[in-house]
């Protein structure tokens, strides 16, 4: 050992390394006792630093890093200088030049910040012929020097000047350094020069606030923001993007890298803000703008940047695209339009709805109205629809689905989110069966009488659901309906053929005919034009819990907020079909529906009206539109198709919707030339004309009345029946006010008028004061029943009273005249006579429950065909 120590030069370089590594372990032990040993080693071996053999250089470095105390400041500077020079020696293979720079950067004193490389700066300037790897590494060193200059802060006024000087130095280092790869500005963005340049930007930038071990939070981030280099790079990025739009993707990547880093995310966002503030206003809309889209995407993604600026620019861009559109640019319009929508989509994904709502809805509205490309318009419409219908968090969630597919194959491009998913999901029969048990489509206004049957499908099992809602009137509905059964389809053609020549008519008949003609001319003929529609408002809702059990939870069900945990239905389509003759029923669409949270003890059956306004997200109102061919109650089959949150297609049939006769009740059409204040009189006239036409079919029976559209005509054929109801008058009035108020044409008879007027529900009708006269003249006319129709009087006890109504005229309270139009061209006329059976009117008012109050109710129903 002594021999070798004496003549270290006698060994080959690798052997020297072996020797020194052994010596360091020995010296490490001896150091405590004999401190001089390290100095001895230093003296013996430090000369090797000047060898061109990298191994020998490293030998000295081994000693230095192990026993750095033995090396004085002068020695350290010597080592640093030597390493800087080794990196410049062109005869070395590249790897050793790179290693030399690494060794230099790895020197422990340097890492501590105790030593500075600043005096050696000129050595690290890359030269033209340095390989790019070496340039990159030299730039690293320069960034290191710049960072140390940038952060060393001076205090006191005299240091201000020095500070300024250092700032200039930092900028100079940065700019000088980049010169050697300045070709990145015009070379293709994928060039190595570009990579090196942006790597350098990154290193210069974060050199001021490097990652600290293990901690994701960076306390020095504020220092970075104040640093010279940050400001330099800020302005540089803006001008780079402006002047070399080819570099935009690289700038975007550069930002991505910062944004992905926990410690430097903030920096990335600051830079994005800079771009948003300084780049966006300078950009002009035009086809060139598309190259900036990568930056726009980042801006759209960042929720710290207010999106107005970008959205305004994009809106301008869409306008420009639409204006510039010509025959040879439609492919371009499509491509750029789609890209703009892509950014809009990103906005939907990352921003709160309220923030983007106004500007984005303007942009989308414009696009879906005026953009030349159809697909773009369509997509814009879809986005707009989603923006309007789906609440923010759910919207952001489904927008993210494409990126995180759960059970659905990922869509190749964003647009396909709205395309029909692959059929294998659609045919999940097992799941579809029980859909009706948790998805409910219900009538907003329940039927007075639950329909227990259907005319054409006799055996539907709703029989047990008997309504007990209004007991008194429960028997009314069935009998007239059975009447209609036989009438079925009347051959109109047959009717319109006049069988007999017109007869002479008196003026009264002529007047009646005039009213009737006028009336029927307003009724559309459904065979030639859109028929009169009846609307049944319904509500769609579904229960969260069973739904989630069947279709799986949304992926973020764990979210603490209640709304987020609830499942939702998207793009629901409800289709209807019926065996009854209701024409074609248009399907209804519900873009978004949230599941109802399950509440303990919540009863589904009662219709809770207060719920309606509570949160419309839980309940969607659906309007079923029917064009009945004949006014018959029936059932509508309901089928549903919807998307669950995870992309599964839900399909199945729901509970039937029952259509009652009261759904058909419409007011008669008012001809356009009737003034508003004349309407009650018109209805009155119409009522009388129809009544007359039915009653005296001799006069009008052969008459035909052309319908609107001019091709068809109808004849009047009335059917009359009389009913006696034993209910308290109070119930009758209540029931009429509640259910038939819009159809009441006239109220006659003082006692009745007084009651009804007091209640104030029925308005704008003709009030007939003279009850006595009316009763005398009309009631009698009602007594002779139409001979071809069997009179139905369901009450056996009424049989005995059948002849009593004429006798108890004096107890007549009054008459309601009711005119109901039943599409397509039927009418229902009621003349309801309320009579006292008790002498005291007061009794009726005060003791409504009194069973002794008996009222005769007379129903006359007429039908025109």
């Amino acid at each position: 050992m002594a021999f070798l120590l004496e003549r270290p030069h006698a060994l080959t370089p690798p052997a020297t390394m072996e020797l020194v590594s052994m010596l360091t372990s020995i010296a490490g032990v001896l150091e405590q006792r004999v401190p001089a040993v390290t100095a001895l080693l230093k003296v013996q071996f430090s000369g090797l630093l000047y060898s061109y053999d990298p191994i020998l250089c490293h030998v000295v470095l081994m000693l230095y890093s192990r026993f750095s105390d033995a090396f004085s400041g002068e020695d350290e500077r010597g080592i640093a200088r030597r390493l800087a020079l080794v990196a410049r020696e062109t005869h070395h293979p590249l790897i050793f030049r790179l290693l030399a720079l690494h060794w230099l950067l790895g020197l422990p004193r340097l890492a501590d910040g105790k030593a500075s490389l600043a005096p050696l700066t000129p050595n690290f300037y890359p030269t033209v012929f340095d390989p790019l790897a070496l340039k990159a590494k030299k730039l690293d060193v320069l960034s290191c020097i710049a960072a140390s200059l940038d952060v060393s802060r001076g205090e006191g006024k005299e240091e201000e000047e020095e500070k300024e000087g250092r700032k200039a130095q930092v900028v100079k280092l940065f700019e000088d350094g980049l010169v050697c790869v300045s070709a990145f500005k015009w070379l293709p963005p994928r060039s190595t020069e570009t990579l090196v340049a942006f790597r350098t930007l990154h290193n210069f930038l974060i050199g001021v606030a490097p990652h600290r071990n293990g901690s994701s939070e960076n306390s020095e981030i504020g220092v970075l923001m104040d640093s010279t280099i940050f400001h330099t790079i800020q302005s540089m990025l803006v001008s780079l993007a402006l002047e070399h739009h080819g570099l935009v993707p690289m700038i975007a990547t550069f930002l991505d890298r910062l944004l992905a880093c926990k410690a430097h995310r903030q920096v990335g966002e600051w830079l994005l803000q800079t771009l948003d503030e300084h780049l966006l206003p300078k950009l002009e809309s035009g086809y060139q703008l598309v190259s900036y889209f990568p930056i726009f995407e980042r801006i759209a993604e960042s929720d710290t940047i207010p999106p107005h600026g970008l959205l305004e620019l994009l809106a301008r861009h869409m306008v420009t695209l639409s204006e510039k559109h010509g025959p040879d640019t439609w492919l371009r319009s499509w491509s750029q339009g789609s890209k703009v929508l892509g950014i809009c989509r990103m906005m939907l994904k990352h921003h709160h709805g309220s923030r983007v709502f106004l500007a984005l809805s303007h942009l989308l509205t414009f696009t879906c109205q005026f953009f030349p490309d159809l697909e773009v318009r369509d997509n814009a419409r879809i986005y707009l629809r989603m923006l309007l219908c789906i609440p923010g968090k759910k919207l952001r969630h489904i927008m993210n689905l494409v990126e995180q597919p759960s059970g659905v194959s990922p869509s190749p491009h964003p647009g396909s989110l709205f395309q029909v998913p692959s059929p294998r999901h659609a045919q999940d029969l097992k799941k579809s069966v029980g859909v009706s048990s948790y998805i409910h489509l219900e009538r907003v206004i329940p039927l007075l009488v639950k329909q227990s049957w259907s005319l054409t499908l006799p055996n539907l099992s709703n029989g047990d659901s008997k309504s007990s809602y209004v007991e008194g009137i429960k028997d009314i509905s069935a009998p007239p309906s059975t009447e209609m059964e036989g009438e079925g389809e009347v051959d109109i053609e047959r009717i319109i053929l006049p069988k007999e020549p017109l007869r002479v008519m008196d003026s009264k008949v002529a007047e009646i005919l005039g009213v009737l003609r006028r009336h029927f001319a307003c009724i559309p003929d459904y065979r030639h034009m859109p028929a009169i529609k009846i609307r049944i408002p319904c509500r769609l809702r579904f229960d969260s819990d069973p739904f989630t059990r069947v279709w799986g939870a949304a992926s973020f069900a764990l979210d603490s907020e209640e709304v987020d945990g609830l499942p939702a239905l998207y793009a629901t389509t409800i289709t209807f079909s019926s065996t009854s003759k209701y024409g074609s029923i248009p399907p209804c669409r519900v873009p978004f529906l949230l599941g109802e949270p399950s509440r303990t003890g919540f009863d589904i059956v009662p219709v809770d009206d207060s719920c309606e306004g509570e949160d419309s997200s839980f309940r969607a109102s659906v309007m079923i539109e029917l064009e009945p061919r004949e006014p018959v109650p029936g059932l509508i089959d309901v089928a549903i198709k919807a998307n669950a949150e995870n992309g599964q297609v839900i399909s199945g049939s729901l509970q039937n919707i029952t259509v009652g006769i009261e759904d058909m009740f419409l007011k008669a059409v008012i001809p356009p030339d009737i003034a508003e204040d004349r309407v009650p009189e018109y209805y009155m006239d119409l009522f009388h004309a129809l009544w007359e036409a039915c009653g005296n079919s001799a006069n009008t029976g052969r008459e035909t009345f052309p319908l609107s559209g001019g091709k068809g005509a109808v004849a009047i054929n009335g059917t009359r029946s009389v009913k006696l109801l034993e209910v308290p008058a109070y119930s009758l009035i209540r029931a009429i006010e509640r259910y038939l108020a819009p159809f009441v044409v006239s109220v006659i008879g003082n006692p009745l008028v007084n009651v009804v007027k007091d209640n104030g529900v029925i308005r704008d009708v003709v009030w007939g004061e003279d009850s006595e006269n009316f009763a005398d003249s009309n009631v009698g006319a009602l007594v002779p029943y139409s001979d071809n129709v069997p009179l139905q009087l369901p009450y056996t006890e009424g049989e005995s009273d059948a002849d009593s109504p004429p006798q108890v005229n004096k107890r007549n309270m009054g008459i309601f005249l009711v005119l109901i139009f039943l599409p397509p061209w039927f009418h229902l006329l009621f003349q309801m006579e309320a009579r006292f059976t008790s002498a005291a009117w007061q009794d009726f008012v005060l003791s409504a429950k009194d069973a002794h109050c008996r009222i005769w109710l007379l129903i006359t129903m007429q039908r025109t065909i």
Partner: protein
Amino acid sequence: MSSCSIRALWILNPQDAVVFSRRFPVVERRWRLACEKEKESSAVEDYRYSAQPLLPTDVELASAFAERKKRQGSARGFGIRFSQSVQGSDSWVDDPITRHIITLYVNGEEGDEFMLWPLVLHTKGSYYILVLPFVGPQQFKAYVRLFTRSDCGNSVGEECSLSSLLLNLPCITGAFMVAHTVGDMVAGDVQDPEVVVSSSPSVGGLLDSLTGSIGIPSISARAKPVAAPVAASTTSGASAAGNVVIDTPKSTSRPIDKEALRTFISSSMPFGTPLDLNISNISAIKTNGFSSADLPPSDLKQPAWKPYLYKGKQRILFTIHEFINAALYDRDEIPDAISISGQLNCKAELEGLPDVSLPLTGLKSAHVEILSFHHCAQVSEHGEDKQALMFSPPLGNFVLMRYQALSNLDPPVKGFYQLSMVSEDEGAFLFRLRLMEGYKAPFSMEFCTVTMPFPRRRVASIDGNPSTGTVSTTEVSVEWKIITSGRGITGKSIEATFSGTVRFLPRTSQRVPSRSMSVSASVVEEDSDVEQDSSGNIVNIEEYLTEKMNKDLQAVDLEEPLCWQAYSYAKVSFKIFGGSLSGMSIDPKTVSIYPAVKAPVEFSMQASSGDYILWNTLGRCPFAALATVH
């Protein structure tokens, strides 16, 4: 601190098959023990990223290497983090050195996957040489941390950076030396430094000395290169034209002499520890052995690197050989950049173990900036202008000293080159050059050739006659021989002009598949919108053509200094005898030998061109900022 030990070494051919491998069980055992110790002390972690006491089989290694090559686009990889980099890959570390120190994921045949680091990758000829040095599991883990870091990476000066790791891993440095030595053996270009004397052009190295003195002629046949056809020519024309770095792979290869390699490895690194990497010495010992005549004299301490002592006529030869790199711009705003790297080669045919002292003076006037010495040399004083050198010369030719300097004289070829595209397929060019201006005898220029490379065009024809010399064309270049060998000029300067027109075949839109960055190239979206517009905006035809040409430029390797194909330039090559451009010189009279013997000292100088580029004055040119001393 551990020294350098090698766990294993592999040589792969261009088809990614292992053609040679060597494992060192002794080192592997140490590694296994270290792993077990580490496992005991640390908690369970990701198996994939933990140090495993495993070594791949040749097949496993080959497939892992091929896999990495596929993933990273080339054998070396990307080196720089870019948009497609993923966590847990070398480019994630974002340091160009990861193109040389690589990681492999080995999928073991028994289904175990583990990571291998650091694999030192060296390419020579068309072979890949992978050397796996022994590093401690701690350091392995430190790298894994860098390798899988989740942040934006690579800030210089942080703790536990790659730099400090490399500083503490001399084994990597050693492994590189091993890899380079093995590479030289594989490629068969074991070159001795050239030593020129006036009597004969070149003097052979150690082997000649040995064969001359000992008389075994068979050894000299060893290094004869055998030409073998190889498909994988990876260098582009431009890179071949523009590089003096020895690192570039050559396109010729020859079958490996495995036996020689095995012998070399077992003697140069017994038990995996490299002890002597001098090929000449090892093979000489192997061939000759030691005879009684070679017994070292007892009074002298014979160095390990000098196994034999010279016997015969004594003399000492010195040659200064300089390479000049120049970027000539002929522009006011950009100064020309000229640098010289030189070396002092020596051949000392001296008996015994004498010390030679050589004072170096006038370093300042020669603008010598960096000096590095052979390990046999000791520098007794480091003056700025004066250095005294004492060395005990090894046998044969060796590089005593290397230096970097600035040019003391004007560049030997001055002038400008202009090329202007008059149409898409036709360019007018003009050279106006002055050669050897200000160079007096004994400077003599042996030859001088100017080459205009057009790597992306096909030269159809050339019009115009030079004022002197001859012109020839190849498919991708035009070559102008101003001075041909044998008609060198001495002590005078000449002027040469050449103007004319070069015509190219029309461009076919062929796209050369890019080499290293193919992944990034294919991913970058070609936006037709942008392209259409940019073409409409440019009025100038020249700019338009440049833009058009630049669009399909391929990214260059990080080992290239610049994207050569993006520029138009002319490359000058020449050789000058009779002096050094830097002014570096030694005075033979001051050379003293101890113990004193009478030995003649001969000295010669020559300079040749490295990257000597005339940038097109009318086109774009690359440049670098010059450092100004603060």
